[in-house]
């Protein structure tokens, strides 16, 4: 297994784990799969694109602003559409996120059209190739994405475990009524979960847009990453990270040694395998599988 393959797997895994963490955070808070996660990924990239009008040289600020904006959007989505649906069956809430995804995609296409954009070009920045030892090569954006993934996910895990608010978020996710009896504003905690999830997806979106291209259907990358939290455990961030390496490796191996078209389906085979053998994933809680 050569170094280039390893590098590709790590990069893809970083991407998957960012999006996957988004799914996990939302699932813990609202017990649903946020199928609009891909659209949040796409939106963040478009926010960055819109902010490029500020001119070059301010890239860090633009990145920060784009992430803040998408976090706010996610918080608003939670408040306006998910919070009123407390108590409804999971199926309905998931379908609601699908409806939101469609609206977000349509609005983005309306505003920015389906034309492919290249934000880095607009900013005049070139995506140089970094040559790593043992003959591997990754782009600057890819390396940045891996670093960002490590920082973000590590930060989220630490935050949830150590910070007071993090503990309150975990408590609200486990038992909302009890948490509110203890004075926690659970809806604020949930909105925060959604915002953090959006930031994770947003980082992935920015990386993809900078590295490949920006167009509305990059939102589909979000669905592609769905296998990761399902395999890793919908309640475990650590499980998602492990699963992302697993899925990334399987995909890359399939592309290299089997049919390239297979890469798209490999995640779904993994999902099926886990559903049959271990539905709650590698590190997920063995929950009483909720009925619809």
């Amino acid at each position: 297994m050569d170094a280039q393959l390893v590098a590709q797997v790590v990069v893809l895994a970083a991407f998957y784990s960012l999006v996957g963490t988004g799914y996990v955070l939302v699932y813990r808070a609202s017990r649903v799969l946020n199928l609009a996660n891909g659209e949040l990924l796409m939106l963040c990239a478009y926010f960055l694109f819109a902010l490029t009008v500020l001119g070059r040289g301010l890239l860090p600020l633009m990145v920060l602003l784009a992430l803040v904006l998408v976090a706010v959007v996610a918080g608003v989505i939670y408040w306006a559409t998910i919070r009123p649906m407390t108590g409804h069956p999971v199926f309905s809430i998931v379908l609601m996120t699908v409806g939101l995804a469609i609206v977000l995609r349509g609005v983005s296409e309306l505003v920015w059209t389906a034309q492919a954009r290249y934000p880095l070009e607009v900013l005049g920045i070139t995506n140089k190739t970094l040559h790593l030892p043992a003959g591997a090569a990754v782009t600057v954006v890819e390396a940045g994405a891996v670093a960002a993934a490590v920082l973000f996910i590590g930060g989220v895990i630490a935050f949830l475990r150590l910070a007071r608010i993090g503990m309150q978020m975990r408590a609200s996710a486990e038992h909302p009524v009890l948490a509110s009896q203890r004075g926690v504003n659970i809806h604020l905690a949930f909105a925060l979960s959604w915002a953090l999830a959006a930031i994770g997806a947003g980082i992935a979106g920015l990386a993809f847009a900078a590295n490949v291209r920006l167009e509305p259907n990059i939102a589909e990358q979000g669905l592609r990453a769905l296998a990761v939290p399902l395999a890793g455990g919908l309640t475990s961030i650590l499980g998602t990270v492990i699963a992302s390496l697993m899925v990334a490796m399987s995909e890359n191996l399939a592309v290299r040694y089997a049919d390239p078209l297979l890469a798209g389906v490999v995640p779904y085979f993994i999902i099926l395998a886990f559903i049959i053998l271990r539905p709650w994933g590698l590190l997920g809680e063995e929950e009483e599988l909720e009925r619809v």
Partner: protein
Amino acid sequence: MASGSGYFYTSYRQALAVFDTAFKKQALFALAIAVALFPLVGSNFQVHLVNLCFIAVLGALSQNLLIGYAGQVSLGFAGLFAAGGFTAALMVKELEFSAFIPVVAAASAVGAVLGVLVGLPSLRVKGLYLAVSTLALHAVIVYGASEYQHRLGGSAGIVIPKPSFGPLIIDSDREWYYLLGVVAALTTLACINLVRSRVGRAWQAIRDRDIVAEACGIPLVRYKLLAFTVSSALAAMAGAIDAYHAGFVSVEKYSFLLTVQYLAMIVVGGLGSILGSLLGAFVITLLPFVIDFIVHIFPTPERLVINILQLQRIAFGGVIVAVFLLEPRGLVALWERVKSFFQLWPFKFMVSGLR
């Protein structure tokens, strides 16, 4: 449901009848007349629209049986719809056989078999995980279909000839109208009876609380798989008929978005309701055309007119979100509310019993 109408059954036969009240019988008769005469007054385009709705009704019924009545979440509709279409395509292309009824029957059979497969996870998991496993199976089916299509070099799709019954060839919109109308009506009637039967009751018991259903002696495995089988057979049948109607089959149209459209139909119309399936099918199918109509009737900025596709999309997503926020139980619930209001007026609610 609230009923202050004071209508009572006076015989067992009446209680068992599908259309029990005189009003229902009369309404049905009037509806039948209206449906039969519509092609004579409507334009070709309008008839075509209703044809699309008729096909949608088949799919919506299949989804509502599975999700609304049996409570099994499935995201695999597009895969089964594709299975129906591609079975037709296979028979036309490979076996050079295109007689309508046998092909559709074969497609239904294929759907039924696939349905058992898609339904197997339901014996182990429920809810979210079941939904995801059906999605995965859908991806696998579509992958298989796309491999077939690409291998055959038919990247533009496979052409299906017009259906024929002996000397009669279904060619125009009006001819399709009567064929599809009859199929939709018969299917609806079959579904109404199915949900009233022991099978339907077992499904609803499973949906509401499967552990208790099992304790009551309902074999879960048999009825869950039956739900998947029937629903998938119907979905594949719809897919085959749609293939004939469209005239060709191509893997692009069997996307996840198609599944979402049909899920929207049953949610907007009302889960667990035959009427809901019909209403939802019509509303969702006609929605893009309504948007088109509105955009062209009212003065709209040029930019929006060009991007009509996006507007239709936004409207579609918006309808789903709006339904959940305003009336999660769908149009039938809205209809029930209106009905109760008039039936109970001037009272606000019934005191005795629970709704």
